[in-house]
Protein backbone atom coordinates (compact mmCIF):
# COMPACT_ATOMS: atom_id res chain seq x y z
CA UNK A 1 0.00 0.00 0.00
CA UNK A 2 2.81 2.40 0.95
CA UNK A 3 4.48 1.47 -2.29
CA UNK A 4 1.39 2.41 -4.28
CA UNK A 5 1.07 5.75 -2.49
CA UNK A 6 4.76 6.41 -3.10
CA UNK A 7 4.44 5.61 -6.82
CA UNK A 8 1.36 7.81 -7.03
CA UNK A 9 3.25 10.64 -5.33
CA UNK A 10 6.17 10.26 -7.75
CA UNK A 11 3.80 10.25 -10.73
CA UNK A 12 2.03 13.41 -9.57
CA UNK A 13 5.37 15.10 -8.86
CA UNK A 14 6.63 14.25 -12.34
CA UNK A 15 3.44 15.62 -13.86
CA UNK A 16 3.73 18.87 -11.92
CA UNK A 17 7.42 19.25 -12.76
CA UNK A 18 6.72 18.51 -16.43
CA UNK A 19 3.91 21.03 -16.45
CA UNK A 20 6.15 23.52 -14.67
CA UNK A 21 8.85 23.04 -17.28
CA UNK A 22 6.33 23.65 -20.03
CA UNK A 23 4.97 26.73 -18.32
CA UNK A 24 8.23 28.23 -17.28
CA UNK A 25 9.48 29.81 -20.53
CA UNK A 26 6.37 31.93 -21.07
CA UNK A 27 6.00 33.00 -17.46
CA UNK A 28 9.69 33.46 -16.76
CA UNK A 29 10.63 36.77 -15.18
CA UNK A 30 7.06 37.58 -14.10
CA UNK A 31 6.84 40.53 -11.71
CA UNK A 32 3.45 40.88 -10.01
CA UNK A 33 3.74 44.61 -9.18
CA UNK A 34 4.88 45.43 -12.70
CA UNK A 35 1.93 43.41 -13.99
CA UNK A 36 -0.42 45.44 -11.82
CA UNK A 37 0.97 48.69 -13.25
CA UNK A 38 0.88 47.43 -16.84
CA UNK A 39 -2.69 46.20 -16.39
CA UNK A 40 -3.79 49.84 -16.32
CA UNK A 41 -3.41 49.85 -20.09
CA UNK A 42 -5.64 46.76 -20.43
CA UNK A 43 -8.50 47.83 -18.19
CA UNK A 44 -9.21 50.92 -20.25
CA UNK A 45 -11.08 48.41 -22.42
CA UNK A 46 -11.29 45.04 -20.61
CA UNK A 47 -13.83 44.97 -17.80
CA UNK A 48 -13.77 42.59 -14.85
CA UNK A 49 -17.04 40.83 -15.63
CA UNK A 50 -18.72 41.93 -18.86
CA UNK A 51 -17.77 40.34 -22.17
CA UNK A 52 -19.74 42.87 -24.23
CA UNK A 53 -17.63 43.78 -27.26
CA UNK A 54 -14.34 43.00 -25.48
CA UNK A 55 -13.66 39.81 -23.49
CA UNK A 56 -13.21 39.79 -19.71
CA UNK A 57 -9.75 38.48 -18.74
CA UNK A 58 -9.79 38.53 -14.94
CA UNK A 59 -8.92 35.16 -13.45
CA UNK A 60 -7.93 33.60 -16.78
CA UNK A 61 -5.11 31.01 -16.73
CA UNK A 62 -1.74 32.78 -16.76
CA UNK A 63 -0.44 30.58 -19.56
CA UNK A 64 -3.52 31.25 -21.65
CA UNK A 65 -3.04 35.02 -21.31
CA UNK A 66 0.67 34.79 -22.11
CA UNK A 67 0.08 32.58 -25.13
CA UNK A 68 -2.62 34.88 -26.49
CA UNK A 69 -0.42 37.95 -26.06
CA UNK A 70 2.45 36.21 -27.84
CA UNK A 71 0.10 35.32 -30.72
CA UNK A 72 -1.02 38.95 -31.00
CA UNK A 73 2.59 40.09 -30.78
CA UNK A 74 3.50 37.78 -33.68
CA UNK A 75 0.39 38.95 -35.57
CA UNK A 76 -0.97 35.41 -35.64
CA UNK A 77 -4.23 36.63 -34.07
CA UNK A 78 -6.22 39.46 -35.61
CA UNK A 79 -7.18 42.70 -33.89
CA UNK A 80 -5.24 45.88 -34.53
CA UNK A 81 -5.56 47.21 -30.99
CA UNK A 82 -4.32 43.98 -29.41
CA UNK A 83 -1.52 43.60 -31.96
CA UNK A 84 -0.42 47.12 -31.12
CA UNK A 85 -0.58 46.57 -27.36
CA UNK A 86 1.26 43.24 -27.55
CA UNK A 87 3.91 44.52 -29.96
CA UNK A 88 5.06 46.97 -27.29
CA UNK A 89 5.35 44.27 -24.59
CA UNK A 90 8.49 42.22 -24.00
CA UNK A 91 8.42 38.67 -22.61
CA UNK A 92 8.80 39.75 -18.99
CA UNK A 93 6.00 42.25 -19.33
CA UNK A 94 3.73 39.63 -20.87
CA UNK A 95 4.56 37.19 -18.06
CA UNK A 96 3.91 39.91 -15.46
CA UNK A 97 0.51 40.73 -16.95
CA UNK A 98 -0.36 37.04 -17.16
CA UNK A 99 0.23 36.30 -13.48
CA UNK A 100 -1.42 39.55 -12.41
CA UNK A 101 -4.69 38.98 -14.31
CA UNK A 102 -4.67 35.34 -13.21
CA UNK A 103 -4.67 36.52 -9.59
CA UNK A 104 -7.86 38.58 -10.00
CA UNK A 105 -11.31 37.26 -9.21
CA UNK A 106 -13.50 36.47 -12.21
Amino acid at each position, binding site marked *: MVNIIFKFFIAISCLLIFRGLLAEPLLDGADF*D*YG*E*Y*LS*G*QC*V*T*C*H*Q*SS*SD*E*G*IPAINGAEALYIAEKLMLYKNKELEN*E*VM*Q*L*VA*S*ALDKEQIASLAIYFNSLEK
Partner: protein
Amino acid sequence: MNNLSRRSFVSFALASTSLLAMPAISTGSARPKVVVVGGGAGGATAARYIAKDSKGAIDVTLIEASKHYYTCFYSNLYLGGFRDYDSIGHSYDNLSANHGVNVVHDWAISVDSSARKVRLGSGATVSYDRLVLSPGIDIKYDSIDGYSVEAQTKMPHAWKSGTQVKVLRDQVLNMPKGGTFAMVPPPNPYRCPPGPYERISMVAHILKEKNPTAKIVVIDPKNKFSKQGLFMAGWEKHYPGMVEWIDNDTHGGIKNVNPETMEIETDLDTFKADVACVVPAQRAGAIAMNAGVTDGDWSPIVPASMQTKADGNIYVLGDASVASAMPKSGFSANSQAKVAANHIRGELTDSRVFPAKFSNTCWSLVATNDGIKVGANYKAGDEKIEVVDKFVSKTDEGNAKRKKTYEESIGWYNGITTDMFS
Protein backbone atom coordinates in the same frame (compact mmCIF):
# COMPACT_ATOMS: atom_id res chain seq x y z
CA MET B 1 -22.56 102.12 14.98
CA ASN B 2 -24.27 105.31 13.78
CA ASN B 3 -24.33 104.53 10.12
CA LEU B 4 -24.32 100.82 10.52
CA SER B 5 -27.65 99.42 11.56
CA ARG B 6 -27.72 96.59 14.08
CA ARG B 7 -29.02 94.23 11.41
CA SER B 8 -26.29 94.95 8.87
CA PHE B 9 -23.67 94.79 11.61
CA VAL B 10 -24.87 91.30 12.54
CA SER B 11 -24.78 90.27 8.87
CA PHE B 12 -21.32 91.73 8.50
CA ALA B 13 -20.13 89.97 11.63
CA LEU B 14 -21.56 86.66 10.48
CA ALA B 15 -20.01 87.05 7.08
CA SER B 16 -16.65 87.82 8.68
CA THR B 17 -16.95 84.80 10.93
CA SER B 18 -17.79 82.54 8.03
CA LEU B 19 -14.89 83.93 6.03
CA LEU B 20 -12.57 83.24 8.92
CA ALA B 21 -14.07 79.80 9.43
CA MET B 22 -13.96 78.90 5.76
CA PRO B 23 -10.38 79.20 4.66
CA ALA B 24 -9.21 75.61 4.68
CA ILE B 25 -10.79 72.28 3.89
CA SER B 26 -8.97 70.13 6.39
CA THR B 27 -8.79 66.44 5.75
CA GLY B 28 -7.44 65.97 9.26
CA SER B 29 -4.49 63.72 8.56
CA ALA B 30 -0.75 63.81 8.24
CA ARG B 31 -0.91 61.71 5.10
CA PRO B 32 0.56 63.23 1.95
CA LYS B 33 -2.10 65.15 0.05
CA VAL B 34 -2.94 65.02 -3.62
CA VAL B 35 -5.50 67.39 -5.06
CA VAL B 36 -6.95 66.59 -8.47
CA VAL B 37 -8.80 69.31 -10.37
CA GLY B 38 -11.26 68.09 -12.99
CA GLY B 39 -13.20 64.84 -12.90
CA GLY B 40 -13.00 63.74 -16.52
CA ALA B 41 -11.03 60.96 -18.18
CA GLY B 42 -7.72 62.29 -16.80
CA GLY B 43 -8.74 63.54 -13.36
CA ALA B 44 -11.21 60.84 -12.31
CA THR B 45 -8.75 58.14 -13.39
CA ALA B 46 -5.84 59.78 -11.58
CA ALA B 47 -7.85 60.26 -8.36
CA ARG B 48 -9.09 56.68 -8.48
CA TYR B 49 -5.69 55.10 -9.16
CA ILE B 50 -3.80 57.15 -6.57
CA ALA B 51 -6.39 56.38 -3.89
CA LYS B 52 -6.88 52.73 -4.88
CA ASP B 53 -3.21 51.81 -5.30
CA SER B 54 -1.93 53.72 -2.28
CA LYS B 55 -4.50 51.86 -0.17
CA GLY B 56 -5.25 54.88 1.97
CA ALA B 57 -1.65 56.06 2.36
CA ILE B 58 -2.38 59.17 0.28
CA ASP B 59 -5.17 61.63 1.00
CA VAL B 60 -6.87 62.33 -2.35
CA THR B 61 -9.27 65.21 -2.98
CA LEU B 62 -11.05 65.57 -6.31
CA ILE B 63 -12.39 69.03 -7.18
CA GLU B 64 -15.13 68.84 -9.80
CA ALA B 65 -18.00 71.28 -10.25
CA SER B 66 -20.47 68.82 -11.78
CA LYS B 67 -22.22 66.20 -9.68
CA HIS B 68 -22.88 64.17 -12.79
CA TYR B 69 -20.28 63.86 -15.52
CA TYR B 70 -21.52 63.48 -19.09
CA THR B 71 -18.79 62.02 -21.26
CA CYS B 72 -17.71 63.90 -24.34
CA PHE B 73 -16.87 60.60 -25.95
CA TYR B 74 -20.09 58.98 -27.13
CA SER B 75 -21.95 62.33 -26.97
CA ASN B 76 -22.00 62.15 -30.78
CA LEU B 77 -23.73 58.77 -30.49
CA TYR B 78 -26.37 60.41 -28.31
CA LEU B 79 -26.68 63.10 -31.01
CA GLY B 80 -27.19 60.40 -33.65
CA GLY B 81 -29.78 58.53 -31.56
CA PHE B 82 -27.58 55.52 -30.81
CA ARG B 83 -27.42 56.20 -27.05
CA ASP B 84 -29.80 57.84 -24.64
CA TYR B 85 -28.58 60.84 -22.69
CA ASP B 86 -28.62 59.14 -19.28
CA SER B 87 -26.34 56.38 -20.56
CA ILE B 88 -23.45 58.83 -20.97
CA GLY B 89 -23.87 60.31 -17.46
CA HIS B 90 -21.80 59.06 -14.52
CA SER B 91 -21.69 59.77 -10.79
CA TYR B 92 -18.65 60.20 -8.53
CA ASP B 93 -20.22 58.31 -5.64
CA ASN B 94 -18.08 55.18 -6.07
CA LEU B 95 -14.82 57.13 -5.92
CA SER B 96 -15.71 58.14 -2.37
CA ALA B 97 -17.40 54.93 -1.31
CA ASN B 98 -14.90 52.46 -2.78
CA HIS B 99 -11.60 54.34 -2.58
CA GLY B 100 -12.04 57.10 0.00
CA VAL B 101 -11.57 59.95 -2.47
CA ASN B 102 -12.77 63.22 -0.96
CA VAL B 103 -14.97 64.56 -3.78
CA VAL B 104 -15.65 68.31 -3.54
CA HIS B 105 -18.20 69.69 -6.00
CA ASP B 106 -16.87 73.17 -6.58
CA TRP B 107 -14.82 75.21 -9.04
CA ALA B 108 -11.07 75.54 -8.58
CA ILE B 109 -10.53 79.27 -8.97
CA SER B 110 -6.81 79.77 -8.45
CA VAL B 111 -3.58 78.04 -7.52
CA ASP B 112 -0.94 79.44 -5.19
CA SER B 113 1.95 77.24 -6.25
CA SER B 114 4.43 78.59 -3.70
CA ALA B 115 2.05 77.94 -0.78
CA ARG B 116 0.74 74.77 -2.51
CA LYS B 117 -2.89 75.72 -2.12
CA VAL B 118 -5.90 75.68 -4.41
CA ARG B 119 -8.64 78.25 -3.82
CA LEU B 120 -12.19 77.14 -4.52
CA GLY B 121 -15.29 79.03 -5.64
CA SER B 122 -16.69 78.77 -2.10
CA GLY B 123 -13.67 80.71 -0.82
CA ALA B 124 -12.18 77.65 0.87
CA THR B 125 -8.61 76.56 0.16
CA VAL B 126 -7.21 73.06 -0.16
CA SER B 127 -3.53 72.28 0.47
CA TYR B 128 -1.58 69.83 -1.62
CA ASP B 129 1.75 68.08 -1.80
CA ARG B 130 1.10 67.23 -5.44
CA LEU B 131 -1.52 68.84 -7.67
CA VAL B 132 -3.03 67.19 -10.74
CA LEU B 133 -4.75 69.52 -13.18
CA SER B 134 -7.00 67.89 -15.72
CA PRO B 135 -9.30 70.76 -16.65
CA GLY B 136 -9.87 69.86 -20.29
CA ILE B 137 -10.38 72.69 -22.75
CA ASP B 138 -11.72 76.20 -22.71
CA ILE B 139 -13.35 77.55 -25.85
CA LYS B 140 -11.66 80.61 -27.41
CA TYR B 141 -14.90 82.42 -28.17
CA ASP B 142 -13.09 85.34 -29.77
CA SER B 143 -11.22 83.13 -32.27
CA ILE B 144 -14.10 83.51 -34.76
CA ASP B 145 -15.47 86.99 -35.47
CA GLY B 146 -19.12 87.16 -34.47
CA TYR B 147 -18.97 84.16 -32.12
CA SER B 148 -19.45 84.63 -28.37
CA VAL B 149 -20.74 82.97 -25.22
CA GLU B 150 -24.21 84.29 -26.15
CA ALA B 151 -23.91 82.92 -29.70
CA GLN B 152 -23.57 79.37 -28.48
CA THR B 153 -27.32 78.90 -28.01
CA LYS B 154 -27.91 79.77 -31.69
CA MET B 155 -24.77 78.10 -33.05
CA PRO B 156 -23.83 75.58 -30.36
CA HIS B 157 -20.29 74.26 -30.25
CA ALA B 158 -21.49 71.34 -28.12
CA TRP B 159 -17.82 70.45 -27.59
CA LYS B 160 -18.02 69.86 -23.84
CA SER B 161 -20.85 67.33 -23.89
CA GLY B 162 -23.77 68.08 -21.53
CA THR B 163 -26.78 70.20 -22.32
CA GLN B 164 -25.42 71.83 -25.50
CA VAL B 165 -25.44 68.46 -27.24
CA LYS B 166 -29.12 68.20 -26.30
CA VAL B 167 -29.73 71.65 -27.79
CA LEU B 168 -27.97 70.65 -31.00
CA ARG B 169 -29.91 67.39 -31.27
CA ASP B 170 -33.22 69.24 -30.88
CA GLN B 171 -32.17 71.75 -33.54
CA VAL B 172 -31.26 68.97 -35.99
CA LEU B 173 -34.51 67.11 -35.34
CA ASN B 174 -36.52 70.30 -35.91
CA MET B 175 -34.62 71.49 -38.98
CA PRO B 176 -36.85 72.57 -41.92
CA LYS B 177 -37.32 69.97 -44.65
CA GLY B 178 -34.54 70.22 -47.18
CA GLY B 179 -32.63 72.66 -44.94
CA THR B 180 -28.89 73.08 -44.48
CA PHE B 181 -26.81 71.94 -41.53
CA ALA B 182 -23.47 73.77 -41.41
CA MET B 183 -20.51 72.55 -39.42
CA VAL B 184 -17.43 74.64 -38.69
CA PRO B 185 -14.80 72.29 -37.20
CA PRO B 186 -12.05 73.78 -35.01
CA PRO B 187 -8.49 74.47 -36.13
CA ASN B 188 -5.66 72.27 -34.78
CA PRO B 189 -4.92 71.40 -32.04
CA TYR B 190 -8.28 70.54 -30.51
CA ARG B 191 -10.12 67.99 -28.39
CA CYS B 192 -10.98 64.75 -30.21
CA PRO B 193 -9.54 65.01 -33.75
CA PRO B 194 -12.11 62.69 -35.42
CA GLY B 195 -14.98 64.21 -33.37
CA PRO B 196 -16.25 66.82 -35.86
CA TYR B 197 -16.39 64.22 -38.62
CA GLU B 198 -18.13 61.61 -36.48
CA ARG B 199 -20.59 64.40 -35.61
CA ILE B 200 -21.22 65.06 -39.31
CA SER B 201 -21.83 61.32 -39.76
CA MET B 202 -24.32 61.25 -36.89
CA VAL B 203 -26.21 64.30 -38.17
CA ALA B 204 -26.30 62.70 -41.64
CA HIS B 205 -27.66 59.52 -40.04
CA ILE B 206 -30.57 61.47 -38.51
CA LEU B 207 -31.24 63.48 -41.66
CA LYS B 208 -31.19 60.45 -43.94
CA GLU B 209 -34.05 59.01 -41.92
CA LYS B 210 -36.06 62.12 -41.04
CA ASN B 211 -35.12 64.79 -43.57
CA PRO B 212 -33.51 63.10 -46.58
CA THR B 213 -33.44 66.17 -48.86
CA ALA B 214 -31.44 68.19 -46.29
CA LYS B 215 -27.80 69.04 -46.95
CA ILE B 216 -24.69 69.21 -44.78
CA VAL B 217 -21.96 71.69 -45.57
CA VAL B 218 -18.66 71.49 -43.70
CA ILE B 219 -16.65 74.71 -43.73
CA ASP B 220 -13.31 73.54 -42.43
CA PRO B 221 -10.43 75.80 -41.34
CA LYS B 222 -8.14 72.86 -42.20
CA ASN B 223 -7.14 71.20 -45.46
CA LYS B 224 -7.16 67.66 -44.09
CA PHE B 225 -8.50 65.81 -41.07
CA SER B 226 -8.29 62.62 -39.01
CA LYS B 227 -9.42 59.40 -40.74
CA GLN B 228 -10.35 61.57 -43.74
CA GLY B 229 -10.38 58.80 -46.36
CA LEU B 230 -12.49 56.56 -44.13
CA PHE B 231 -15.03 59.25 -43.29
CA MET B 232 -15.37 60.52 -46.85
CA ALA B 233 -15.81 57.01 -48.22
CA GLY B 234 -18.40 56.36 -45.49
CA TRP B 235 -20.35 59.55 -46.32
CA GLU B 236 -20.43 58.60 -50.00
CA LYS B 237 -21.54 55.07 -49.17
CA HIS B 238 -24.24 55.83 -46.58
CA TYR B 239 -25.26 59.40 -47.35
CA PRO B 240 -24.53 59.93 -51.08
CA GLY B 241 -24.68 63.55 -52.16
CA MET B 242 -25.62 64.84 -48.70
CA VAL B 243 -22.26 66.01 -47.31
CA GLU B 244 -20.12 68.71 -48.93
CA TRP B 245 -16.74 69.23 -47.25
CA ILE B 246 -14.97 72.47 -48.19
CA ASP B 247 -11.34 72.80 -47.20
CA ASN B 248 -9.60 76.00 -46.19
CA ASP B 249 -7.80 76.46 -49.51
CA THR B 250 -11.12 76.29 -51.35
CA HIS B 251 -13.17 78.70 -49.20
CA GLY B 252 -10.15 80.88 -48.48
CA GLY B 253 -10.75 81.29 -44.72
CA ILE B 254 -13.66 81.84 -42.34
CA LYS B 255 -14.17 85.61 -41.99
CA ASN B 256 -17.04 85.66 -39.51
CA VAL B 257 -20.25 84.06 -38.31
CA ASN B 258 -23.58 85.76 -37.64
CA PRO B 259 -25.82 83.93 -35.17
CA GLU B 260 -28.76 86.26 -35.93
CA THR B 261 -28.84 85.61 -39.68
CA MET B 262 -27.30 82.12 -39.29
CA GLU B 263 -24.65 83.01 -41.86
CA ILE B 264 -21.04 81.93 -42.12
CA GLU B 265 -18.92 84.18 -44.30
CA THR B 266 -15.78 82.99 -46.04
CA ASP B 267 -13.60 84.53 -48.75
CA LEU B 268 -15.37 82.34 -51.29
CA ASP B 269 -18.99 82.71 -50.29
CA THR B 270 -21.51 83.33 -47.53
CA PHE B 271 -23.20 80.15 -46.36
CA LYS B 272 -26.68 80.34 -44.88
CA ALA B 273 -27.57 77.60 -42.44
CA ASP B 274 -30.74 76.42 -40.76
CA VAL B 275 -28.72 74.73 -38.04
CA ALA B 276 -25.04 75.45 -37.43
CA CYS B 277 -22.52 73.77 -35.17
CA VAL B 278 -19.57 76.13 -34.79
CA VAL B 279 -16.57 74.85 -32.84
CA PRO B 280 -14.00 77.59 -32.20
CA ALA B 281 -10.31 77.22 -31.39
CA GLN B 282 -9.45 75.90 -27.93
CA ARG B 283 -6.93 76.23 -25.13
CA ALA B 284 -6.15 74.59 -21.81
CA GLY B 285 -8.77 75.05 -19.09
CA ALA B 286 -8.42 78.33 -17.17
CA ILE B 287 -7.02 76.80 -13.99
CA ALA B 288 -3.93 75.60 -15.88
CA MET B 289 -3.40 79.15 -17.12
CA ASN B 290 -3.90 80.49 -13.60
CA ALA B 291 -1.45 77.99 -12.10
CA GLY B 292 1.27 79.39 -14.34
CA VAL B 293 2.06 76.05 -15.95
CA THR B 294 1.14 76.94 -19.54
CA ASP B 295 3.21 78.18 -22.43
CA GLY B 296 0.86 79.80 -24.90
CA ASP B 297 -2.44 77.94 -24.95
CA TRP B 298 -1.31 74.59 -23.51
CA SER B 299 0.78 73.12 -20.74
CA PRO B 300 4.17 71.56 -21.61
CA ILE B 301 4.86 68.38 -19.66
CA VAL B 302 7.77 66.05 -18.86
CA PRO B 303 6.92 62.93 -20.92
CA ALA B 304 8.14 60.38 -18.36
CA SER B 305 5.84 61.59 -15.57
CA MET B 306 3.29 64.16 -16.90
CA GLN B 307 4.76 66.72 -14.44
CA THR B 308 4.62 70.21 -15.88
CA LYS B 309 7.89 71.65 -17.09
CA ALA B 310 7.13 74.77 -15.05
CA ASP B 311 6.48 73.15 -11.64
CA GLY B 312 7.41 69.61 -10.56
CA ASN B 313 4.63 69.55 -7.96
CA ILE B 314 1.97 70.12 -10.61
CA TYR B 315 0.94 67.53 -13.19
CA VAL B 316 -1.25 68.30 -16.19
CA LEU B 317 -3.20 65.55 -17.93
CA GLY B 318 -5.25 65.17 -21.06
CA ASP B 319 -6.47 67.90 -23.39
CA ALA B 320 -4.77 70.72 -21.47
CA SER B 321 -1.28 69.22 -21.88
CA VAL B 322 1.15 69.33 -24.76
CA ALA B 323 1.30 65.58 -25.27
CA SER B 324 2.91 66.00 -28.70
CA ALA B 325 2.05 62.95 -30.80
CA MET B 326 -0.83 61.88 -28.53
CA PRO B 327 -4.19 63.28 -29.59
CA LYS B 328 -6.41 65.17 -27.17
CA SER B 329 -8.76 62.30 -26.36
CA GLY B 330 -10.39 60.65 -23.36
CA PHE B 331 -8.34 57.51 -23.99
CA SER B 332 -5.10 59.54 -24.00
CA ALA B 333 -6.05 61.34 -20.77
CA ASN B 334 -6.89 58.02 -19.09
CA SER B 335 -3.55 56.57 -20.23
CA GLN B 336 -1.59 59.62 -19.05
CA ALA B 337 -3.40 59.55 -15.68
CA LYS B 338 -1.99 56.11 -14.89
CA VAL B 339 1.56 57.23 -15.66
CA ALA B 340 1.11 60.28 -13.41
CA ALA B 341 -0.57 58.26 -10.63
CA ASN B 342 2.31 55.78 -10.58
CA HIS B 343 4.85 58.62 -10.45
CA ILE B 344 3.01 60.53 -7.72
CA ARG B 345 2.72 57.44 -5.53
CA GLY B 346 6.43 56.86 -6.01
CA GLU B 347 7.25 60.41 -4.97
CA LEU B 348 4.98 60.44 -1.92
CA THR B 349 5.17 56.87 -0.61
CA ASP B 350 8.37 55.46 -2.15
CA SER B 351 6.39 52.85 -4.10
CA ARG B 352 7.98 51.47 -7.27
CA VAL B 353 7.88 53.73 -10.32
CA PHE B 354 7.66 51.92 -13.63
CA PRO B 355 8.52 53.31 -17.08
CA ALA B 356 5.83 55.43 -18.71
CA LYS B 357 3.69 53.61 -21.23
CA PHE B 358 1.06 55.42 -23.26
CA SER B 359 -1.55 54.33 -25.74
CA ASN B 360 -4.61 55.65 -27.52
CA THR B 361 -7.37 54.36 -29.76
CA CYS B 362 -10.15 56.54 -31.17
CA TRP B 363 -13.25 54.73 -32.39
CA SER B 364 -15.77 56.59 -34.53
CA LEU B 365 -19.19 55.60 -35.82
CA VAL B 366 -19.94 56.48 -39.45
CA ALA B 367 -23.35 54.82 -39.73
CA THR B 368 -25.27 51.93 -38.12
CA ASN B 369 -22.75 49.13 -37.45
CA ASP B 370 -20.04 50.95 -39.40
CA GLY B 371 -17.29 51.60 -36.87
CA ILE B 372 -13.75 52.75 -37.69
CA LYS B 373 -10.71 53.24 -35.48
CA VAL B 374 -7.24 54.70 -35.33
CA GLY B 375 -4.70 53.96 -32.64
CA ALA B 376 -1.08 54.16 -31.56
CA ASN B 377 1.45 53.26 -28.88
CA TYR B 378 3.69 55.96 -27.47
CA LYS B 379 6.82 56.23 -25.40
CA ALA B 380 8.29 58.99 -23.30
CA GLY B 381 11.08 60.62 -25.27
CA ASP B 382 13.37 63.10 -23.53
CA GLU B 383 11.46 66.10 -24.78
CA LYS B 384 8.26 64.72 -26.28
CA ILE B 385 5.86 61.82 -26.19
CA GLU B 386 6.76 59.87 -29.33
CA VAL B 387 4.84 57.40 -31.51
CA VAL B 388 6.16 53.83 -31.44
CA ASP B 389 3.64 52.14 -33.72
CA LYS B 390 0.19 52.91 -35.13
CA PHE B 391 -2.72 51.57 -37.15
CA VAL B 392 -5.85 52.81 -38.87
CA SER B 393 -8.93 50.97 -40.21
CA LYS B 394 -8.91 50.14 -43.92
CA THR B 395 -11.45 51.40 -46.43
CA ASP B 396 -12.03 47.92 -47.90
CA GLU B 397 -12.21 45.84 -44.74
CA GLY B 398 -15.85 44.70 -45.10
CA ASN B 399 -19.10 45.07 -43.17
CA ALA B 400 -18.48 42.30 -40.62
CA LYS B 401 -15.23 43.91 -39.50
CA ARG B 402 -16.87 47.32 -39.23
CA LYS B 403 -19.68 45.92 -37.09
CA LYS B 404 -17.11 44.25 -34.84
CA THR B 405 -15.23 47.54 -34.51
CA TYR B 406 -18.44 49.28 -33.40
CA GLU B 407 -19.12 46.52 -30.86
CA GLU B 408 -15.54 46.85 -29.64
CA SER B 409 -16.13 50.56 -29.09
CA ILE B 410 -19.09 49.76 -26.83
CA GLY B 411 -16.81 47.48 -24.82
CA TRP B 412 -14.26 50.28 -24.62
CA TYR B 413 -16.87 52.81 -23.47
CA ASN B 414 -17.96 50.49 -20.68
CA GLY B 415 -14.33 49.72 -19.85
CA ILE B 416 -13.05 53.29 -19.62
CA THR B 417 -16.04 54.58 -17.69
CA THR B 418 -15.62 51.70 -15.23
CA ASP B 419 -11.93 52.57 -15.02
CA MET B 420 -12.85 56.19 -14.20
CA PHE B 421 -15.82 55.83 -11.89
CA SER B 422 -16.01 52.38 -10.22
